[in-house]
């Protein structure tokens, strides 16, 4: 439905963003440190989208925040590296970050209702970024703002410049937010559940817009979502997070069609199916029992083990490192690393996901 670029890329090419072993800790009342992100590694190619999925509190958002230097206090990046076009981001000073943000890395949020300042017009906020980040003069900024609004699909853009945020619908505001985010031509766009607050038809349009802009501007995009169907629609790669760890990584089709990690498997099964429900009669929605563990009190070994249906005693000694389990997928599961999950009947799983 929504165009996804072919994900062929030469592996020799340097990735746009390379995150290695990123760890983010939060102090707890005891001596222990809660690791909101633990040894997280992934790469994003220019013009590609990485989907970051997982349950609430698994470290998706905090990982994203670290990539723009805004880990919420009192959290700290405690280790790892994140290189954007070869340049290390972690450990930049406040001043250096101010120059990276907006012009190299941009971010859009979940709630377009509150992410625009209510007392300034849309044009004012858009022009502010254009003037500060691209050094345009007042008149240039204005015409560029019109062009940008037009570009993100806002009709009668010139007259919309004078509108205040409350005069726009949710979908329009998210379009404006996207226009502001791409105003300074960032190389990497971080999208933190950009469509969660929107209704389904608008959701599709916004996702299509992000996909289109990414292609045109050759941006890398990271899309955080807990909606697998959204991820399946627009992402090239997927990284599944659980309790601060990446438990599975790979091309989105492979991962969703043939999930290796039991957690991914559970997530894929839990997607509601409308299609075929009648043919099969009523079927209860499969859910994943239990809850993610508290980050300050992780179980020994594999942190997913207590909820895992394939659990073995030796899982309690497993260090959750990622290892290739199929040709394209990396998995942090002891069982799958020993014996990959065979591919299910073709078409079967795909239907379940889309």
């Amino acid at each position: 439905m929504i165009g996804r670029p072919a994900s062929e890329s030469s592996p020799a090419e340097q990735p746009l963003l390379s995150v290695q072993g990123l760890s983010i800790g939060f102090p707890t009342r005891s001596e222990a440190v809660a690791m909101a992100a633990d040894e997280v590694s992934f790469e994003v190619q220019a013009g590609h989208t990485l989907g970051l999925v997982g349950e609430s509190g698994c470290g998706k958002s905090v990982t994203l925040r670290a990539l723009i230097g805004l880990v919420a206090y009192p959290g700290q990046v405690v280790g790892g590296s994140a290189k954007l076009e070869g340049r290390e981001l972690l450990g930049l000073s406040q001043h250096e970050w101010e120059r990276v943000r907006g012009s190299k890395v941009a971010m859009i949020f979940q709630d377009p209702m509150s992410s625009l300042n209510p007392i300034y017009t849309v044009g004012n906020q858009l022009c502010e970024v254009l003037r500060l980040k691209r050094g345009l003069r007042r008149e240039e900024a204005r015409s560029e703002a019109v062009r940008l609004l037009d570009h993100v699909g806002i009709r009668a853009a010139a007259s919309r410049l004078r509108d205040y945020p409350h005069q726009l619908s949710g979908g329009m505001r998210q379009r404006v937010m996207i226009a502001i985010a791409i105003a300074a031509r960032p190389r990497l766009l971080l999208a933190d559940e950009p469509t969660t607050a929107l209704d389904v038809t608008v959701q599709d349009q916004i996702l299509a817009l992000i996909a289109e802009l990414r292609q045109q501007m050759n941006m890398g995009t990271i899309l955080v979502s807990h909606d697998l169907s959204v991820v399946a629609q627009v992402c090239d790669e997927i990284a599944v997070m659980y309790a601060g760890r990446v438990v599975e990584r790979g091309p989105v089709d492979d991962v969703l069609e043939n999930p290796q990690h039991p957690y991914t498997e559970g997530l894929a099964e839990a997607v509601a199916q409308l299609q075929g429900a009648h043919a099969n009669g009523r079927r209860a929605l499969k859910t994943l029992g239990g809850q993610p563990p508290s980050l300050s009190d992780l179980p020994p070994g594999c942190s997913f083990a207590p909820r895992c249906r394939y659990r073995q005693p030796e899982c309690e000694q497993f260090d959750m490192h990622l290892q290739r389990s199929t040709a394209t997928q990396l998995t942090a599961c002891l069982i799958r690393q020993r014996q990959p999950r065979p591919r299910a009947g073709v078409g079967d799983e795909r239907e379940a996901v889309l």
Partner: protein
Amino acid sequence: MSAVGASMHDLALRRLARVRRRGIRERRWMHLSLGLGVAMIALVVLATVIQPLLPLPSPNTQNYAAVLQPPSFSHPFGTDNVGRDVFSRTLAGGRIDLPIALLITSMSVLAGVCLGALAGFIGGWVDALIMRLVDIAIAFPFMILVIAVIAIFGPGVKGVIVGVPLVGWSVYARLTRSEMLVVREQEYMLAAEVLGLSRRRALFKHALPNIWRPALAFSMVEVVLNIVLVASLSYLGLGVQPPTPEWGGIIAEGQQYILTAWWISTLPGSVIVIVGLGFSLVGDAAADILGRDLTLAAS
């Protein structure tokens, strides 16, 4: 069936019309109180400004041939015990009281809003320090502190101008800080940071304009209190010194004749009431227009 439906429809329409009328009535009332308030203030301010041009005796001219004269056409507010024209003195007094009250109020607002915004925005020890200063300013008996400052600077206008804002800023700081704590967590503040705007810009361009309204609306009410305060300090002999005409001073001098010559204290007092009412009406309308209920904030 359809008759019932029609009557319900009518009822709903009538109810809508009633709600609309009420809305119009409330808006009209708000505009009326704003207009009335502005008119009252403007009247007094204009009169004080053009006082030297009016065909009146100068405020300090004594006329022993006409002492303790009741109000008449040539002396609208009567004369005092040394034959000075009370109307002329009252208007001249306004040229001292009004600017001082406005000055000390705006100094309080400016200092309070800035410090409160900083406290809320930066947090940490800056917040703790500023808020403890607020506690001290509020806990300390107001009059005593002002009198102490006046004791240092000596009686006169200077003591009032320094002393009152020294305490007055604290209310605005509290008000603004609490607003800032709300605004700071708004997503558009995060968005400003994510776009790489500097913290100073985020504070001044994106946070401050969202939070000064309650302080401004409250300051309208405080102008009244400050006019009375300046007059009270002069009444106590701590503010503007006689024979300079000043509202509190005129009232204080007149009070010994209150039984025989009521006009000396009462008529200047009623001018204070008019100005006070004017600012209250404007403040009320401002609170409405700026969309905040100030009953909580002011307490």
